[in-house]
């Protein structure tokens, strides 16, 4: 049986944003965006308007994840439409400003593509994060990037889960892409992580330029990890964690976690095993910022998505 996937005509992409500092202590994006604001030569591509932006300047100044509330959860419809008032958390005000500049979310005027640059303390390597399994443009771009950086690997995380999905800064664009590179401690800049992120952005922009120039991209398959469930740490009645990620699981992002495998180690040395029904692929294992979000790791299932071919048409 063959499945026929056609080549779909899509509007060319003219307005691109690159967000850094959505979390003020994730240094690769902060540094790259500041660098590009000072000298944008590296990110220039013909026919493209590319705007780098530090999305959370106050958090960047304090080198903290956020000031009042997580900016990368703040782009909810309620927040974006709330009447502006002085008591509003800084990040909600900022979300509204960014929505004005690069949105409005859901409108034809919104930026075509928004990249949001992040780091993680987890051993995720280079990861591209998608919010839709049906965005042919994004899937083709991801496919292009993966081929361009091979043999270095790049995982693709798909978060389409209705309960676990969240309102990201990039979600105001028509085609949102998260770039997550780790492991890197918060507040620290590592050369290898920095260069990996820089290379991915370069390839992404090359793709957009080729697409706009009329290149046709054939239907393709993309292997993704689809978010299925999150797992919190065991905690006491005060909310303090009573166990840590088990040494066998620590740094094991993207590797299978089978029922019965060690998952947590209590402070007095006992092991808590994973008791789920089937093998999962954990990621965001021991991300420092997720202790407060009740997440030790997120479970994913592997899936292969098919993308239609794409070709640009100009208005």
């Amino acid at each position, binding site marked *: 049986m063959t499945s026929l996937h056609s080549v779909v005509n899509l509007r060319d992409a003219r307005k691109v944003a690159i967000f850094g500092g959505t979390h003020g202590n994730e240094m690769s994006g902060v540094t790259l965006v500041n660098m590009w604001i000072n000298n944008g030569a590296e990110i220039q591509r013909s026919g493209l308007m590319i705007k780098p932006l530090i999305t959370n300047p106050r958090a960047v100044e304090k080198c903290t994840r956020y000031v009042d509330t997580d900016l990368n959860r703040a782009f909810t419809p309620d927040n974006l439409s709330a009447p502006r008032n002085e008591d509003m958390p800084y990040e909600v005000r900022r979300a509204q400003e960014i929505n004005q500049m690069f949105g409005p979310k859901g409108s034809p005027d919104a930026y075509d593509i928004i990249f949001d640059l992040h780091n993680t*303390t987890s051993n995720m390597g280079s990861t591209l994060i998608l919010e839709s399994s049906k965005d042919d443009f994004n899937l083709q771009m991801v496919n292009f990037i993966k081929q361009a950086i091979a043999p270095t690997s790049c995982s693709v995380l798909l978060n389409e889960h209705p309960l676990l999905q969240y309102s990201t800064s990039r979600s105001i664009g028509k085609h949102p892409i998260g770039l997550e590179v780790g*492991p890197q401690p918060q507040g620290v800049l590592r*050369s*290898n992580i920095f260069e990996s992120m820089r290379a991915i952005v370069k390839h992404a922009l090359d793709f957009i330029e080729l697409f706009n120039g009329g290149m046709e991209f054939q239907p393709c398959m993309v292997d993704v990890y689809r978010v299925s469930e999150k797992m919190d740490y065991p905690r006491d009645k005060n909310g*303090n964690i009573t166990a*840590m990620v*088990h040494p066998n699981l620590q740094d094991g992002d993207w590797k299978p976690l089978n029922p019965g495998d060690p998952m947590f180690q209590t402070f007095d040395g006992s092991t808590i095993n994973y008791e789920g029904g089937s093998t999962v692929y954990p990621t965001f294992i*021991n*991300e420092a910022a997720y*202790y407060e979000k009740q997440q030790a790791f997120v479970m994913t299932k592997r899936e292969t998505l098919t993308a239609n071919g794409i070709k640009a048409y100009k208005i």
Partner: protein
Amino acid sequence: MDPVSLPALSCVALCGGTHGNELSGVCLVREQQRKKEEETEHVTLVTVMSNPRAVQECRRYIEKDLNRCFTAAILSTPVSDRTPYEIVRAQELNALLGPKGSDGAMDLVCDLHNTTANMGLCLISNSDCDWICMHIYKHLQTNISSIPVRLLNLYTSPDESSNLASVGKHGLSIEIGPQPHGLVRADVLSTMKKGVQLMLEWIRLFNSGTVFEGGEVEVHTVVKCIDFPRDPETHDITAVIHPQLQDQDFCLLRQGDPLFLSFSGETEVYRGGAPLSSLCE
């Protein structure tokens, strides 16, 4: 050389959360307090969560780095409503575990830290003439093989010493890395527990009259600190630690070795005189 007689260490303080986001010490102290094991043979152990507000917020500090607040000058600063939280707290801790320089001070203050740098297990002492600290170091080095064990000498006088450990008659910080701030790794915590356990074991042996032979240990003494290259106007860093230097803590850095890599790809090399070993936080 004949063994030197020194007073027993009957009161020992174990401190965690001096930096609120260095979680191995926070977890270890919390666990120790939960188990309530304070009176053990030969040693009274006091556990302290040094900076509870910073721990609550999982931040290094609230207003001022607590671990720089223990100089004689800061400890005697008059306190007012506007005094930074950490200075007030430092004076509380000095009253609890000190006063620094007095007969009533804790025999040993051990302060638990993490670093993002690849330092392994590093004991930090304010001098290299404190035989108690040197012997504890030797004991850990002999009995821990999973991770390199070293000692860093800050080479400061008691009055100038600004860290919490300097409040005790003897002071040691245990610094373990690499671990990102804000999270706890099981392997790092396990090493820290082992380090603390061995330290307490040595103290019990010492207090019960064991004679420890003298000998030689290798220590590292702080010579200077090197900052990142920065933009003169914005003060933003303009280069990254060079990939060849990254994670090479305690390795020899020779004249001409790469130090920094600028964002435009140029390498800045070490131009100092004598070869040094570096720590990269």
